């Protein structure tokens, strides 16, 4: 039997606000334990939540970026359960009436576009952390993270392979950073996914029972976890077992998913509207203001690159995979560089180098003006592309070097002067009558060999395009 895979994703996106969602405590990461645990974070008696407007604006921004409906009226609810890192004994979240409804995100998986529907996105507060193993036999509680604003983004079950799920997660990861609502730091837990997976016989209308893989904070683990989970579910069903709806955890060491103990998930959260907070009302005016500040979205930028700049889809996708790269590219083109050559240089050379050194574009050692100069020298044919690569490597090693000085000191300037190239061509034609004969009888290979000869006697400095052009002219005339 063949199977359909059905995947839906819930993503917890940590919003980049200065202070917590319901208090004035800082959200700074990495501080000593409980440094950011203010009285509200500690749930001291009589303390009350006050909503952080910035968190709401960021939620709206997301809603607009995925073309969703922004609720004029939404409600904060209490999700009640006991856990030591949940100081109030309830989490403030949105339940029945979330702030964002019905959006979508378009993904591209191996050349195929697909629309993934976003059911809802709601605001909530994060919990603290239980810290094991630092005190004998005791568990520590760190409430620094308690109250950090999260946007939980829930899709419809629209993905049908691990690859699509990853494409969605990456696209979302890019988008939330692009619009400036999340730092995207997966190690620090700023972007975490819960993935719901089920399988059903191919073409069946009836969804299978799903299991939810909790808390995946790397794309690689996500792919492994989904693939494992899918094979496991198929195997179970084919062996005649039912799938039991449950929450599972992925163990990166074994590469397996495993159900949590049923007790850990048997919770009746007793949701009800939080009486300490008024319903959240958002006016059209607020929405319009935020829309104006949204700027270009990755989708529009991609279109601009492929349509206006005629870049291929692959290069364009890489350039818009990150807002800073896109802005870097934009500023280069704006300074007069050729769109295609620049794209090739960013994707082919700069990115390769950055990836080798595990650096982001912010950490690129080469000064932007030197990078621009380098591409300019290639464009104006002062140097060949190969010479450009040599200079690029040298600049990387020593960012204080100057492109033009390097061209001079290394003698990389290419000869584009016809009067200088023609004598060389004549010499080669004269010395290689056999090859000329071969070319004339239709062997293209011979032509390349002749160009090579000219390049050789020019010591690589002749402009290869020009050599090729002049040579062809000469040979076809005579």
């Amino acid at each position, binding site marked *: 039997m063949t199977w359909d895979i059905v995947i839906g994703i819930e993503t917890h996106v940590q919003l980049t606000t200065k202070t917590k969602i319901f208090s004035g405590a800082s959200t700074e990461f990495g501080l000593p334990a409980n440094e950011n645990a203010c009285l509200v974070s500690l749930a001291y*008696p*009589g303390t009350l939540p*006050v909503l952080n407007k910035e968190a709401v604006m960021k939620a709206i921004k997301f809603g607009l970026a995925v073309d969703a409906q922004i609720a004029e009226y939404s409600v904060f609810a209490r999700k009640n359960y006991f856990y030591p890192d949940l100081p109030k004994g309830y989490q403030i979240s949105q339940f029945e009436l979330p702030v964002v409804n019905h959006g979508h995100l378009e993904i591209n998986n191996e050349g195929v576009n697909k629309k993934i529907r976003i059911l809802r996105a709601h605001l909530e507060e994060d919990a603290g952390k239980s810290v094991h193993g630092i005190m004998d036999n005791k568990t520590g509680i760190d409430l620094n993270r308690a109250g950090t604003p999260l946007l939980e983004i829930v899709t419809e079950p629209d993905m049908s392979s691990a690859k699509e799920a990853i494409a969605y997660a990456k696209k979302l990861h890019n988008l939330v950073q692009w619009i400036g609502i999340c730092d995207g730091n997966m190690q620090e837990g700023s972007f975490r996914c819960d993935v719901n997976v089920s399988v059903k016989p191919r073409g069946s209308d009836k969804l299978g029972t799903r299991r939810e893989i909790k808390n995946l904070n790397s794309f690689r683990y996500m792919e492994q976890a989904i693939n494992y989970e899918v094979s496991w579910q198929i195997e179970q069903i084919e062996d005649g077992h039912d799938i039991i709806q449950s929450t599972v955890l992925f163990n990166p060491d074994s590469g397996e998913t495993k159900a949590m103990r049923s007790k850990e998930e048997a919770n009746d959260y007793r949701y009800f509207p939080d009486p300490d907070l008024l319903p959240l009302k958002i006016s059209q005016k607020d929405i319009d203001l935020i829309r104006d500040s949204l700027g270009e979205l990755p989708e529009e930028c991609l279109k601009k690159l492929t349509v206006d700049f005629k870049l291929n889809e692959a290069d364009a996708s890489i350039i818009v995979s990150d807002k800073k790269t896109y802005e870097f590219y934009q500023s280069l083109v704006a300074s007069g560089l050729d769109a295609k050559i620049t794209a090739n240089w960013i994707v082919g050379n700069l990115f390769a180098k950055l990836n080798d050194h595990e650096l982001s574009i912010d950490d690129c050692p080469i000064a932007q003006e030197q990078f621009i100069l380098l591409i300019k020298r290639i464009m104006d044919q002062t140097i060949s592309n190969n010479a450009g690569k040599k200079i690029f490597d040298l600049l990387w090693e020593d960012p204080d070097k100057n492109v033009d000085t390097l061209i001079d000191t290394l003698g990389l300037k290419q000869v584009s002067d016809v009067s200088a190239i023609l004598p060389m061509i004549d010499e080669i034609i004269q010395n290689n009558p056999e090859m000329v004969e071969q070319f004339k009888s239709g062997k293209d290979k011979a032509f390349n060999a002749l160009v090579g000869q000219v390049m050789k006697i020019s010591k690589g400095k002749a402009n290869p395009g020009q050599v090729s052009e002049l040579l062809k002219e000469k040979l076809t005339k005579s």
Partner: protein
Amino acid sequence: MKDLSLNELNQGLKNKDFSSVELTQYYLNQIKDLNTEINAFITIDEEKSIQQAQQADQLISQNHISELTGIPIAQKDIFCASSWKTTCGSKMLDNFYAPYDSMVVDLFNKCGAINLGKTNMDEFAMGSSNETSYFGAVKNPWNIDFVPGGSSGGSAAAVASGMAPAATATDTGGSIRQPASLCNLTGLKPTYGLVSRFGMIAFASSLDQAGPMAKTAEDCALMLNVMADFDERDSTSIKRDKENYTQSLNASLQGKTIGIPKEFFNDELNDDVKIILEKVMQAYQSLGVNIKEISLPNSQLSIPVYYVIAPAEASSNLSRYDGVKFGYRASNYKDLEEMYLKTREEGFGDEVKRRILVGTYVLSAGYYDAYYLKAQKIRRLIADDFTKAFTECDLILAPSSPSTAFKIGDKTEDPVAMYMQDMYTISTNLAGLPAISAPAGFINKMPIGFQLIGNYFEEAKILNFTHQYQSISDWHKYSPGGVL
């Protein structure tokens, strides 16, 4: 200094008839004499109070004196006060010292009033007799075999017995008005949102409201002048211009209308209470007020609605008392779950547990719609009844309590009988309206009050009506051991 009004105390301090230290010491001595018997205070700290009084005397000597500067005020032990123990009447918080002031305490501190001590109360404000306090029952100063009412029974007993000139209190379903009624005091529950809930330990967040408890409407007005203030730390606090509640105390009532809800004045109403309330009506008529029958058709649903909503919110509000961060923690447990169970089993009293159970039940999956959601809908209908009624009258007159005080222990075995104590007060909490209870007379030597309910933010009108009544009656002047 006994029986002086807040205004008279203010005059005395201004005229240097006595200092704040002398005044504070006088009340501290009263407490020493009487509190062992009455049990109105949980925490007294002479040193802190006297220190505040010394600071107040300095202010007064520099002529920086406002209406309550230098005057000792008893604080209900539900209000967090920096460096004071704040117990909320519970074993759970018997070791809890808040590192912050509630807004109410802060406002009194800022105007130079003295914190005289923290008053006893039903545990987490759950109760109508002050018998659920971990710190023991409070005795009614009019007869120590009787309850003072609750949950602000400590505040009521403190003022009624002359241990404090005035006190703060809170009212979730009648906890200011019912004890005021049972102790011959004037107590005002303001409009929901008028007084900040910041630092006031939550029982039922959508119903809790702080207010003053004192001998007269005038004293309540002076207290409310301090207490009513916008607070951005409480999202339900309402931003509006400050009012002076003493300004219109003497306004004429000629031509005004008091509504009498027929649902309250029915056969169920105790005959003696009815007679007393009729006398109150006659007094108002003598002041030129018209009396008009009105209807609050859904008011009989108030108790069931309240006992769904209040426990639901309480069950969630009290989840934070888990032994992890502050307050009581059981000493022996083998794992986390047992720590939770034992901490809450040992730390909470029966009434609190009962309400947590009820609240947890009504919010459970499968019951939410039938209980909580339905209760919220009826709550709206109850509020709508009042809105409609106020198109026909200025204020509504109602009983404050179904009877005078009952004997300690009389209702402890029957929670529902206890809940009925608040049958006339609860609907205003559900609607968020302001209401006052003021002395109306005595039945068998025990006091009883009448209640006036106003529209939103009509505290000034309520205080005006009550003050006018008090200017032609003298029930509020009686104190225990007096002429009766």
